[in-house]
């Protein structure tokens, strides 16, 4: 990250999609940032597809199923679980580049590097209890349909409680991002996004009763623990993807305030 590129790049071609991608790969000085941004966009969509459609583990089923019903639950979606989570395992490491890109946005702010580093480490460790452990539990459950139902019930709890009940990393991670946005004088993100981080952090607080209640609004499939959580998460993700794209368009690779976009939205060169 020390040598600037030669600045004599030819203008972006107007040709096919592939030719435009090739141009950005060869000449766009923001190529690294766009790789990070597109990884975020593609993988959030892919994770949505894998969790909601292929494995059918979201929205979550009821925590109150008895062991025989749990065995039935695993049996009903056996191949979806086995193949869906295999795909999650293959692409799961993409979270590293996603979190690195978000950590870079914090590094671009006028705050201590401690914020970016904490964010990076917190979200790197979150992947394991927050996502991969659920995949392991569902795979182990689905691979032997004749397993003791009591053990299946334990795997079912492990899957959903590790996924939803891993709270602190997202709670503290969001608060660190919030503090960085509010302290930042480079205008990387608008201040309202700082407060949106607070909303996201609060959803992790209201999830806590999922560790206690086996049914009702506070249970892991309940209207409070799941639906509000998911609603805020979708708004939050959409907001930061949009803001991150604007940040990349505005990026000047300096350390001072980020310049504002020219009024003509076509002036940017987003691929």
């Amino acid at each position: 990250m020390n040598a600037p590129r030669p600045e004599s790049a030819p203008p972006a071609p107007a040709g096919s999609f592939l030719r435009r991608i090739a141009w950005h790969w060869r000449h766009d000085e923001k190529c690294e940032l766009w790789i990070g941004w597109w990884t975020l966009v593609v993988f959030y969509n892919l994770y949505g597809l894998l969790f909601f459609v292929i494995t059918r583990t979201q929205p979550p089923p009821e925590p109150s199923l008895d062991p025989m019903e749990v065995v039935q639950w695993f049996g009903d979606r056996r191949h979806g679980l086995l193949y869906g989570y295999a795909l999650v395992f293959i692409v799961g490491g993409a979270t590293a580049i996603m979190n690195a890109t978000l950590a870079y946005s914090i590094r671009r702010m006028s705050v201590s590097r401690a914020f970016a580093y904490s964010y990076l480490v917190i979200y790197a460790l979150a992947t394991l209890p927050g996502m991969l452990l659920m995949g392991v539990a569902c795979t182990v459950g689905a691979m032997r349909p004749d397993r003791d139902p009591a053990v299946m019930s334990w795997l079912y709890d492990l899957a959903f409680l590790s996924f939803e009940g891993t709270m602190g990393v997202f709670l503290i991670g969001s608060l660190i991002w919030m503090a960085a946005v509010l302290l930042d004088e480079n205008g990387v993100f608008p201040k309202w996004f700082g407060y949106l981080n607070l909303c996201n952090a609060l959803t992790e607080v209201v999830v806590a009763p999922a560790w206690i209640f086996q049914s009702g609004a506070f249970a892991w499939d309940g209207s409070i623990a799941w639906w509000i959580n998911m609603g805020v998460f979708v708004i939050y993700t959409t907001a930061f993807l949009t803001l991150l794209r604007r940040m990349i368009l505005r990026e000047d690779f300096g350390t001072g305030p980020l310049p504002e976009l020219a009024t003509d939205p076509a002036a940017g060169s987003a691929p």
Partner: protein
Amino acid sequence: MPRRADGEVLLLWTLPVLGVVWLSAFLLFPGFVEPMSPTMSAEQVAAFYRDPQNLPRIRYSMIAFNWFAVGLIPILALIVLQIRRMAHRTPIFSYAMIACAAGGPTIFLMANLFWLLAAFRPERDPELTLLLNDLAWVTFSSQVGFLIAQSVILAVAIHLDRQERPVFPRWVAHFNVVVAALLIPAAFTGAALTGPVAWDGVLTFWVRNLAIGLWIAVMAAVLARAIGRQRAEDEAAAA
């Protein structure tokens, strides 16, 4: 500052020692040399852990892995430092590599804990020993995500390292793409109890583990060259 690179050479020389420890622990664990079959019944799995010939070998090999699994992290940190020397505009790739360096060994440690737990009370209900054994093998075999990401990140980072003398030669990028591809089938471990993707299968066990071993050896060699060159440049600058 030549002393800085000297410290890096020291870290790099921990790798042959680590390799010997890993290989010894691998040979010591009775479930690896002829990998345990996923088709074993709960009683057979329990008998494997209860066998007085196996039990100490399971425990000692897994204790050794527990001690030395994270020994690879300093080597990954050296790769992070080489990524930082590349002609990039942002630290995104070195950040992402740090995230992978934390993820991969942690996952291996989880599998290690499940194996040690299964061996801790071999008299446990066979259904529970089977569960711990499944959790260990599935975690160990299927969790290739960070390893794949690490190779893809390196490949992209090397391609974007556009300078007169790139940090790593271009073929290292291609090599990493091949390794990433070889790791993919192991993710499907859970889907088959027999055949090449089962956890004792050719693709999931042998190809995957040999690919990881080869990756470590090749990356260590190119790392040694890059650090050597860096040291020579530092010395020339200091003279």
